[in-house]
């Protein structure tokens, strides 16, 4: 029972609550826009419809190969539960160095040029924080993965989106890069194979980009998390281009190639001066990546994980062909995605915005896919569809999308 004389006090407390805590927040944290993908996630989750087929995921449909999981379980049984050295277990860094050399022909010194991170995401964060000074401009070809710009802003940098176009298969052209450069330009972020477009860039296509990077003394953060998932020819690492190794921070990880998203295991490689600065931030924020994840990652690189990887890549390729053909058969323009596990069809012909299209597709046809505009400039009018889902589900999803399109006519 509340006494009358206590009531004003209670109102006062409630009053200060409704005023909220926003004014305590740092301006930089307040300024970060809410993620468009998060908004769409909430919408999909709210529907609670069991019948929804989702092409909205950003991860493999395989679970981590059993031999990799087993290695982690075994290490736990053996009591491997301690910190590792800040940069990661030496044998893992050794294996990463060897792997990158064998696969992509880039040579890094495991002792000074490799750091094991908590997912590729931490590598991107470390690289941006180690390099950005307030006002620096960070060039980001878009549409692209959603975290480069917010992290840049947090560090006081200015993200500069460079629009890429479907008619160029969303490749970065030297003309548009050149046009975006100012005296404040400092970093170019590349993400090929691309999330969300599936675009890759060949050696010849990257050469003129490298020339501009050189001329303007830029640093490149090359997010190569999808490097293993290419379907016509091998991935070319930007760091393997002449003169680019020292200017490039190569960021990658185990999530996509080895189906290890939940392990949060990544790595970054680059010039010792850059890596040692990143290592300082890393040791003060997270100390080291979890040891069980590191043990699993080592198993992936050294004992048979590579064969499992090849098997998974072949399976993605089959489903990629199925989905791209499916979109084209139903009359949507869809460029050939040569990497990652996304198709990025155009829905311009429907006259709907990508947000309207994605929402109606979800509600009317029960298929979830991510509207392109959340990935930045040039994404409007497109839909990101992840084909890392069973053939039966993909076939059903294609039928539903087709029926939905016919209903719009």
């Amino acid at each position, binding site marked *: 029972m509340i006494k009358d004389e206590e009531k004003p006090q209670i109102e006062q407390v409630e009053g200060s609550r409704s005023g909220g805590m926003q004014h305590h927040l740092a301006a930089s944290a307040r300024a970060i826009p809410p993620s468009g993908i998060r908004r769409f*996630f909430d919408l*999909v*989750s709210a529907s609670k419809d069991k019948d929804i087929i*989702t092409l909205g995921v950003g991860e493999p449909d395989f679970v981590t190969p059993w031999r990799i999981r087993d290695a982690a379980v075994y290490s736990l049984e053996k009591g491997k539960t301690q910190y590792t050295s800040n940069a990661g277990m030496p044998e893992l860094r050794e294996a990463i160095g060897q792997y990158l050399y064998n696969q992509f022909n880039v040579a890094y010194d495991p002792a000074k040029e490799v750091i094991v991170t908590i997912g590729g995401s931490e590598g991107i964060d470390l690289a941006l924080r180690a390099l950005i000074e307030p006002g620096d401009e960070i060039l980001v070809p878009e549409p692209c993965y959603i*975290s480069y710009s917010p992290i840049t802003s947090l560090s006081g940098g200015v993200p500069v989106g460079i629009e890429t176009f479907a008619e160029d298969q969303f490749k970065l052209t030297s003309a548009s890069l050149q046009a975006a450069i100012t005296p404040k330009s400092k970093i170019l972020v590349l993400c090929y194979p691309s*999330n969300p477009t599936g675009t890759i860039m060949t050696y010849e296509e990257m050469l003129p980009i490298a020339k501009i990077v050189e001329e303007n003394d830029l640093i490149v953060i090359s997010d190569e998390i999808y490097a293993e998932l290419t379907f016509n020819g091998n991935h070319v690492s930007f760091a393997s281009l002449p003169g680019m190794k020292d200017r490039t921070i190569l960021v990658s990880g185990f999530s996509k190639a080895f189906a290890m998203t939940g392990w949060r295991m990544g790595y970054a490689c680059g010039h010792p001066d850059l890596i040692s600065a990143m290592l300082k931030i890393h040791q003060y924020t997270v100390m080291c990546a979890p040891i069980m994840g590191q043990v699993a990652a080592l198993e992936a690189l050294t004992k048979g994980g590579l064969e499992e990887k090849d098997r998974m890549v072949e399976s993605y390729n089959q489903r990629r*062909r199925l989905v791209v053909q499916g979109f084209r058969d139903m009359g949507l323009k869809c460029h050939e995605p040569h990497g990652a596990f996304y198709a990025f069809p155009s829905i311009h012909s429907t006259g709907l915005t990508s947000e309207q299209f994605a929402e109606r597709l979800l509600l009317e046809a029960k298929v979830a896919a*991510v509207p392109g505009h959340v990935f930045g400039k040039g994404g409007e009018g497109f839909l990101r569809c992840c084909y890392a889902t069973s*053939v039966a589900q993909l*076939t059903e999803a294609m039928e539903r999308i087709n029926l939905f399109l016919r209903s719009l006519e």
Partner: protein
Amino acid sequence: MNEFKLSILDLLKEDARLSAATIATMLGAEKEDVSAAIAEMERDHVIVKYATVINWSKVDDEKVTALIEVECTPERGRGFENIAERVYLYPEVKSVYLMSGAYDLLVEIEGKNLKEVASFVSNKLSTIDSVISTKSFFILKKYKQDGIIFEEFEDDHRLLVSP
């Protein structure tokens, strides 16, 4: 067997209902070539049958399955061929393998109940002249068959939408 046919078999063993057109798209091949390859493999009995893998434990009229180790005397000139044929012609017999090691044939038998299987072994199998001895092992639970895991632990646990 060429690479192309192997790729087709890899897909069909996972889902026998895939159409030739879908397989062609998935492999980046022509539909006619896929149809021809399948027809050829059917003719050569590479593809023997398109069957369904059933988890009988979820069906009301449950079945009993047993593996029988059979020791027998081979015949001059014919080895184990005749006896294997005499065994596999029974509809109760699901599979017959010639084995290396302590016994000769491994026979999988399916019946309505324990009694039916036991009576088949004692009345039909053991009475064949060249059979020396049999040992029966009843299957209590199937965890995995032909590469397919019966438990549903590999369900999709992914978030519906993620970056």
